């Protein structure tokens, strides 16, 4: 048990508990707060993986901006425990859970077995890992690649954000016109 393993199990357990809490709480506010816990635990996992930039963006964009948007809407609409009328009854819920567990088994099977066919764990991979430990991926590398080879996708991303911005304005504006 090295330090990475201990931290992995702590962060992993916290993120799993948070995720289960998201789908268990009846009140959306509690779900949103549990989701923030999950995001922070995942930021910890990213740090553990050496992805410091991604961890920072995770906290700033996800746990910060996106979750504030969620909480803002929940409070704006004053959603208490909303009626879950038509929510799946006990039997169907059981079916959904069983199907989910099947999906989880598939995912775990792929995660564990697909690696057998790849070079993971081979001597080359171990050499690569050793080389990576000496030269970990840094924010510098991400920036360099983002603004050279992936410049076009980066610009397209800004267009997507612009389209979202305009879309939201149009959605809200049309509401006002129908009211007048």
């Amino acid at each position, binding site marked *: 048990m090295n330090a990475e393993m201990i931290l992995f199990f702590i962060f992993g357990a916290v993120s799993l508990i948070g995720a289960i809490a998201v*789908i268990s709480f009846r009140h959306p506010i509690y779900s949103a707060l549990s989701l923030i816990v999950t995001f922070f635990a995942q930021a910890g996992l990213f740090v553990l993986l050496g992805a410091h930039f991604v961890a920072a963006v995770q906290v700033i964009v996800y746990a910060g901006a996106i979750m504030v948007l969620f909480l803002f809407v929940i409070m704006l609409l004053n959603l208490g425990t909303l009626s879950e009328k038509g929510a799946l009854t006990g039997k169907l819920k059981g079916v959904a859970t069983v199907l989910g567990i099947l999906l989880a088994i598939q995912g775990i099977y792929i995660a564990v077995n697909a690696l057998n066919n790849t070079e993971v764990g081979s001597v080359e991979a171990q050499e690569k890992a050793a080389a990576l430990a000496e030269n970990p991926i840094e924010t510098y590398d991400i920036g360099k690649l983002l603004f050279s080879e992936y410049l076009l996708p980066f610009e397209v991303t800004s267009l997507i954000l612009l389209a979202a911005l305009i879309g939201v304005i149009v959605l809200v504006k049309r509401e006002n016109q129908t009211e007048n």
Partner: protein
Amino acid sequence: MFLGLEYYLVLSALLFTIGVIGVLIRRNAIIIFMCIELMLNAANLAFVAISRDLGQVEGQLFVFFVMAVAAAEVAIGLAIIVSVFKHRETINVDEVNSLKG
């Protein structure tokens, strides 16, 4: 020595599954949205883990793009939820059935 890739992939698969179960069993549109975020995050975790394993930067770049798209999606989705709530006074996805889906 690093912790094996399979640990991270299994965790990612479990988080993704919890997101799928949430979408299946909950009827509140906002909570369904949160479950979609959960699934996107599980995919991000797999991206970063594999990125480290292969020693390639691209995995982390894709996480960046996924986050940008997720931000746009949340903004639009929540705007739609707000306008649906204004019209129907509910965001229960079973009661919002004008499209007969």
